[in-house]
């Protein structure tokens, strides 16, 4: 039995040597269960050890292996070579982000944005261990749960045309996580986060394309987070003089 093979064309770029990115094609043997990530690992192990890409968990948890597969942002660990056969694949680093080398992108911009939204629960008052945990009803948990599923894989940034045009935009994942904490009943940090929401670089740079939610591998709906906060920002705009800062729900 001869093994099936598929052509994988990868973008190569070494900023220390190359004037601009170029493409290199490898012929990779595969079985039904071979993921695109395993295809890349085959190239690195057997064909060209210099190919650079990020990966870790191989099971849609770590969010490291996001790349453009034939122009679509995808996690390579949960995409399979069989689905592209008998065609070929073109694998590129995530769009809209600077290339560090080959398929690895520079995540600095996102990480700074993530920190700026204060992505942790800011309680009104700290509670001692003796007082027990902060309790929540299932309905209260439901309000933020899907947004907490984000694994920071940046597929949504590669999908967002607005972020591509102007990277000052806070972007889908950071806004989804901002909303995750703002809508958590244990959190009291909304006033700290609203200035980010209210800015042009916050929710108002979004034109509701919705592709971010389409590409999310974890079922998070960043587009809804952004657009719910357009309502919050509008309420905050008109009622800021009446209500305490950031109190508009």
């Amino acid at each position: 039995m001869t093994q099936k093979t598929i052509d994988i064309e990868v973008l190569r770029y070494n900023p220390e040597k190359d004037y601009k990115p170029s493409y290199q094609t490898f012929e990779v043997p595969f079985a039904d269960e071979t993921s695109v990530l395993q295809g890349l690992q085959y190239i690195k192990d057997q064909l060209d050890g210099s190919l650079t890409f990020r990966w870790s968990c191989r099971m849609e948890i770590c969010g490291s292996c996001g790349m453009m597969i034939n122009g679509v942002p995808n996690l390579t660990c949960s995409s399979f070579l069989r689905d592209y056969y008998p065609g070929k694949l073109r694998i590129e680093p995530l769009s809209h982000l600077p290339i560090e080398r080959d398929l690895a992108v520079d995540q600095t911009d996102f990480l700074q944005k993530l920190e700026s939204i204060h992505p942790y629960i800011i309680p009104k008052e700290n509670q001692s261990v003796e007082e027990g945990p902060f309790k929540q009803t299932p309905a209260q948990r439901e309000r933020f749960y899907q947004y907490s599923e984000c694994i920071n894989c940046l597929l949504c940034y590669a999908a967002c045309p607005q972020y591509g045009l102007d990277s000052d935009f806070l972007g889908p994942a950071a806004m989804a996580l901002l909303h995750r904490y703002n809508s958590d009943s244990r959190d009291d940090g909304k006033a700290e986060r609203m200035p980010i929401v209210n800015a042009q670089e916050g929710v108002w740079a979004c034109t509701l394309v919705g592709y971010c939610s389409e590409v999310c591998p974890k079922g998070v709906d960043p587009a809804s987070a952004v657009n719910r906060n357009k309502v919050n920002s509008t309420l905050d705009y008109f009622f800021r003089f009446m209500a305490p800062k950031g109190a508009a729900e």
Partner: protein
Amino acid sequence: MAEQSMPNQSLNQSSQRSLKRSNEPVFWALFGAGGVVAAFLLPAVILITGLAAPLGIPSPELFSYERASAFASSWAGALFLFIVISLSLWHGLHRVYHSSHELGIHRGPLLSVIRLVCYGTALGGTVLSAYWLIAAL
């Protein structure tokens, strides 16, 4: 909390970066209100004034000048017309303004001109319709 007390350079950077509150909520609220009008009231208005009236359904006298004028001169009628005209303009012209994005105009003086023309037209339509409706009361 450990996370909060951690020294964090970029957090400081972002808190120092001045974030300016956008005025977009004003236009977005008018756009949203106009969307409700354009979706629910406008089709009925078009059906009545654009189709039923010229076809004389149910009767040609229903939209006679006297009747239409009396409607527009009443407080309720004037308010209705003002809402339909003004908010539909804000809705439509907000869309037109944001459509310049699709044509590749993302920033710069040309966009400012388009913005001025669009919102200026909406504001002009609002002021004029209010003026004429109030004058006719």
